[in-house]
């Protein structure tokens, strides 16, 4: 490998790139603890007031609870559907396979506003009420392609002879799937759950169209932005979300590496 000693324009580019990427995220906790109501430099003092204010905001807890319910159920459903689709696409040959898989993966590139509006129309036409379930429906639709992409890689990396060996040793297809296939693709399943959970948690457009009276966290935050005096508590909220996401990511990576070490496979890929 060639070592470049002097500062080149590539180094400058890298620094600028990283600043643009992470500076906003770093500013969140800075202003969350700043005592001024105005979000601007210079900083005026240290305070926990904005966090305390959050604790007193009843609708925030409702929105958070809604978002968590939606994200967990979405992650589970999208991962289950993704598992089936990924297994089918890597293990079986069936007519029109390419077309079918392309159709399933389409929401990946479909504008969310189209998904949101069309689902809204369908739900209203069917005479159903908007609820958390309608948001879950929309989120499962957009998350499933991501799950399929992640899980396909896992299934492709899984040697087919493990499943055949299990079957050969007298176990049914179902037992083989539960005892051999699932444990071996577990890292992919964890990644799939995590990704779909994260996508669902901060998804705005579909949630905005399909939420009835129950707002999700992003929808609630969007409502807050209109009131400048609430901006510092928004920073506090953002800080909490940032810390929670980081913890989740680290935990998921830890579990994944643990699994990789146990099976003796190289701990490659993943997020960290």
């Amino acid at each position, binding site marked *: 490998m060639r070592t470049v000693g002097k500062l080149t324009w590539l180094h400058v580019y890298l620094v600028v790139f990283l600043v643009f990427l992470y500076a906003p995220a770093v500013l969140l906790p800075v202003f969350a603890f700043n005592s001024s109501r105005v979000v601007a430099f210079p900083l005026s003092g240290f305070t926990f007031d904005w966090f305390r204010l959050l604790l007193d905001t009843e609708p925030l807890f409702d929105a958070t609870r809604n978002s968590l319910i939606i994200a967990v159920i979405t992650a589970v459903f999208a991962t289950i559907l993704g598992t089936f689709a990924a297994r089918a696409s890597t293990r079986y040959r069936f007519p029109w396979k390419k077309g079918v898989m392309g159709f399933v993966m389409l929401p990946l590139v479909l504008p969310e506003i189209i998904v949101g509006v069309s689902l809204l129309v369908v739900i209203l036409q069917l005479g159903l009420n908007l609820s958390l379930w309608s948001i879950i429906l929309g989120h499962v639709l957009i998350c499933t392609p991501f799950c399929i992409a992640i899980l396909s890689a896992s299934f492709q990396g899984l040697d087919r002879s493990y499943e*055949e*060996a299990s079957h050969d*040793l*007298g*176990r049914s297809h179902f037992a083989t799937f539960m005892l051999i296939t699932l444990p071996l693709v577990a890292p992919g399943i964890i990644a799939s759950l995590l990704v779909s959970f994260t996508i669902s948690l901060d998804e705005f457009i579909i949630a905005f169209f399909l939420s009835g009276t129950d707002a999700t966290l992003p929808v609630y935050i969007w409502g807050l932005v209109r009131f400048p005096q609430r901006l510092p508590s928004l920073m506090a909220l953002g800080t909490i979300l940032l810390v929670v996401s980081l913890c989740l990511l680290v935990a998921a990576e830890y579990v994944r590496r643990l699994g990789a070490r*146990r099976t003796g496979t190289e701990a490659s890929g993943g997020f960290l």
Partner: protein
Amino acid sequence: MSEPIIRMTGIEKAFGDVRALKGVSMEVRVGEFFSLLGPSGCGKTTLLRVIAGFEEPTDGNILIGGRPMDGVPANRRPTNMVFQNYAVFPHMTVAENVEYGLRVRIKDRNERQRQVDDALAMVGLEGFGARHSHELSGGQRQRVALARALVLKPTVLLLDEPLSALDKKLREQMQSELRHLQRAVGITFILVTHDQEEALTMSDRVAVMFEGDIAQLASPQDLYRRPVDRRVAGFIGVMNFIDVRVLGAVPGGVEVDVAGLGRVVVPAEQAPGGTEGPIVAGIRPEMLTVLFDDSDVAARVTEGEIDEVQYFGDMTYYDVKIDGIGKPVTLAMRNTAGRRVLQPGDRARIGWGPDSVLLLR
């Protein structure tokens, strides 16, 4: 003769337009070490997978232990398989791997444990029960795969090129261990291999396959001495092919004119495929000898010039140019204490006999 353990009739298998198996019929005897030998793509692995139940034949039927296997899935067949890459489950310990198939059969935990221990002892892996697959060498993984299959006491054990991933030394050691194991447990083994030496040294009988069908099914000795055609003869060991002209039938055989060697009467049993159509003469390298001294005698003698010398320590292989034969003929001589090794360019008298000539289609 007792009822065969496996009887296959007219097994066909097509993948799309490709006919992988073209009406294979054969029988495997109780307790024998049986090998399916052939070049890659000849259908031997497909045939093994049909027996195991991983592939449904397009046509034909199989009886295992007298029971028809139509529609019987792999998990209900009295066969177990050792996979080419062993497929030892990486998320389980060695003991859990061996116990895997037993768990649905034997409810009593102590009994299960006892059988797992026995199986591990049988393959020489006592004390390895708590290890994981990635803590084992290739040879040890193979033993786990063997124990895992044999603990279920299958009617037939299927082995899919189990030695191909091992280095030469370990492979030779495992060959003799497998042979011993098979004698000890008395279970019928069916081995798939592309290595003719492996098939010859280990098997009671070998089926040589080409292009989706069995070309010859015989004991290793018969395969080597009496190959049915030139494909089999060329695949098993080294064989010199020499042009030949059939002169006509005579009492006790057929008279032919072998290029460069002359006229000879070949006994009928040395022309197993008959002498109709285009045929070729085949002579094994060890059937030709260099006559070093005037006192050395042979039934027939010809002259040649040494072209290449390959020295193996115990044996020396010479490529000899003989007038009238286009390609140099390979000849193998055992190296004894007083015997010298010839050099390229040396002239030599070559001895041979009518009993060493095969006529092959």
